[in-house]
């Protein structure tokens, strides 16, 4: 039996004149956590919607769990659990009512449904919130309800669109632990879209997307190892004046990420020493690290990933990762 859970071949999609996806090819293996990483407008959400059967397939082929999406989207829907970027739970209903309503829509009969709801509420530590109105829950709890809802019918594939949108770091970590637990316990294939590096790094396999195309793919480690050298990040009180000095010193162009200047250098330790001995008094902090996924993106596209997302968001993420 094939190990491939989702395969997409030459998939293209456009909204009127605007091309959102161009000749996308990818394969998702069963039981993995698979990430679609790209900035806003890279086409990852369009691909997600095609997988979720919410958009008609215009060109190419998609097969999910061995079923052709064009011929039998209804059978595919039975295999999918979908969690959207914007919440799809009813804020006026209680947690249990939401799950009950959703389970009935998925054709589950009442008795097994009720025990499945209790099981999931237990799994996601929501048992004491069973009768709470969803609109009164915190963002993190609401996300957990979404996740429980997506898993009610024991789907083979869990699709998540930007799953940690609006979550604080603690809730985000907790949410991720739950996703990985589910994947390990039930062997669920998880496919998610994200623009957060930290989130992407936890995936087993990544597809980097830009302007509707797949630009690179592999495990995060393979992708990072595909770039030589190190990354040197420097924070200064007077970045505007220091930038040209450092650029000529290191013989490489700087790029801004938040309030830092980043340089890709062949030997990070030597570059750091050189910078500190020459203009160390003007440096607030300096850090040497292996190339990030963002560097991979820059290498392939020639553009910074953060050009399209809020710099503060990226900065906050990297700071959270450091802390």
């Amino acid at each position: 039996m094939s190990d491939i859970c989702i395969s997409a071949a030459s998939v293209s999609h456009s909204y009127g004149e605007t091309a959102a996806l161009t000749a996308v090819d990818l394969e998702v293996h069963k039981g993995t956590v698979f990430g679609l990483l790209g900035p806003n407008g890279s086409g990852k959400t369009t691909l997600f919607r095609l997988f979720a059967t919410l958009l008609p397939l215009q060109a190419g082929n998609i097969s999910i769990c061995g079923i052709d999406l064009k011929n039998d989207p209804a059978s595919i829907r039975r295999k999918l659990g979908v969690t959207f970027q914007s919440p799809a739970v009813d804020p006026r209903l209680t947690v249990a009512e939401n799950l009950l309503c959703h389970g009935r829509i998925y054709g589950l009969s009442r008795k097994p449904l009720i025990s499945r709801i209790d099981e999931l509420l237990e799994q996601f530590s929501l048992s004491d919130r069973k009768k709470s109105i969803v609109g009164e829950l915190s963002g993190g709890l609401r996300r957990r309800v979404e996740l429980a809802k997506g898993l009610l019918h024991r789907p083979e594939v869990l699709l998540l669109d930007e799953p940690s949108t609006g979550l604080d770091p603690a809730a985000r970590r907790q949410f991720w632990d739950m996703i990985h637990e589910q994947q390990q316990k039930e062997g669920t294939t998880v496919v998610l879209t994200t623009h957060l590096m930290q989130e992407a790094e936890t995936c087993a396999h990544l597809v980097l997307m830009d302007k509707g195309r797949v630009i690179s793919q592999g495990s995060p480690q393979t992708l990072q190892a595909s770039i030589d050298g190190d990354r040197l990040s420097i924070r200064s009180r007077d970045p505007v004046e220091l930038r040209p000095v450092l650029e000529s010193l290191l013989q490489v162009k700087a790029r801004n990420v938040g309030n830092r200047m980043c340089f890709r250098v062949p030997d990070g330790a030597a570059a750091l020493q050189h910078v500190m001995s020459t203009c160390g008094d003007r440096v607030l902090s300096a850090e040497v690290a292996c190339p990030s996924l963002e560097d991979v993106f820059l290498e392939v596209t020639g553009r910074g990933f953060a050009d399209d997302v809020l710099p503060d968001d990226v900065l906050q993420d990297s700071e959270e990762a450091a802390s």
Partner: protein
Amino acid sequence: MNASSQPGSMWSAAWALAWRELIRFFRQRTRVIGAIGQPVIFWVLFGAGLGGSFQPPKWAAGLSQPLTYQEYFFPGVAVLIVMFTAIFSTISIIEDRREGFLQGVLAAPVPRSVIVMGKVLGGTVLAVIQAGLFLLVGPLLSYVGLSPALQITLDPVPAILAALFLILIAVELTALGFLIAWPMNSTQGFHAIMSIFLMPMWLLSGAFFPGGGSDWLSWIVRLNPLTYGVAGLRRLLYSGTLPVTDSLPSMPVCVGVTVAFSVVTCLICVKLVSRPMTHNVT
């Protein structure tokens, strides 16, 4: 525990959506008050205010006592309650889309017609409960002086028939509301359609005035499908004893037109939801 797409599970899914409508409705007390309170206030105020200038239509000549305006207006108010409930139920489609709930249903392994079935079922149950309550409680207002004594007779069989006919009117109006709301992105747009289309439709259905004053007006009344809903309900409230006139069609015609309009609006709704639309996903 596999999901299936049997007709039984379609109904179960539709009922789940309708059940959600009921919970949402009863959890918002202002909606309950709005849907039944406003028509009752209209009935009492217009009934008292316009009573003096009202000329009973021809079909009322055979009644034992002269027909007061408030009594004439009574079935019209029941239909207004159905219309308001249908509007409020279907306007929530726009909220469902905005809040994201709709995309969850669209990704489920059920035909999209379930969305129509769920909304129409939920809207109909709510409308029939409220309009039925008004038909039962309305005549009692005469005891506190807020209405004249009504001549309507609600024996068990006509009462059951009236309830069944109310279901038909509710299906027709909820489906109509649905097909207006479905393509819309904002509730403001729906309010505009409500003011220029749905309210005039009710006003020109013989619910508010007999409409025999001019040729063009009586033609509009005759072409309005809701006229047959109001007339049918009026007939059932008088146990089918009223004569057939230009402004009061016969019962078979009323049932025929109302059923036909319900079927057509439901079919259009199913057709509409089956078309993939990008604005359904957020």
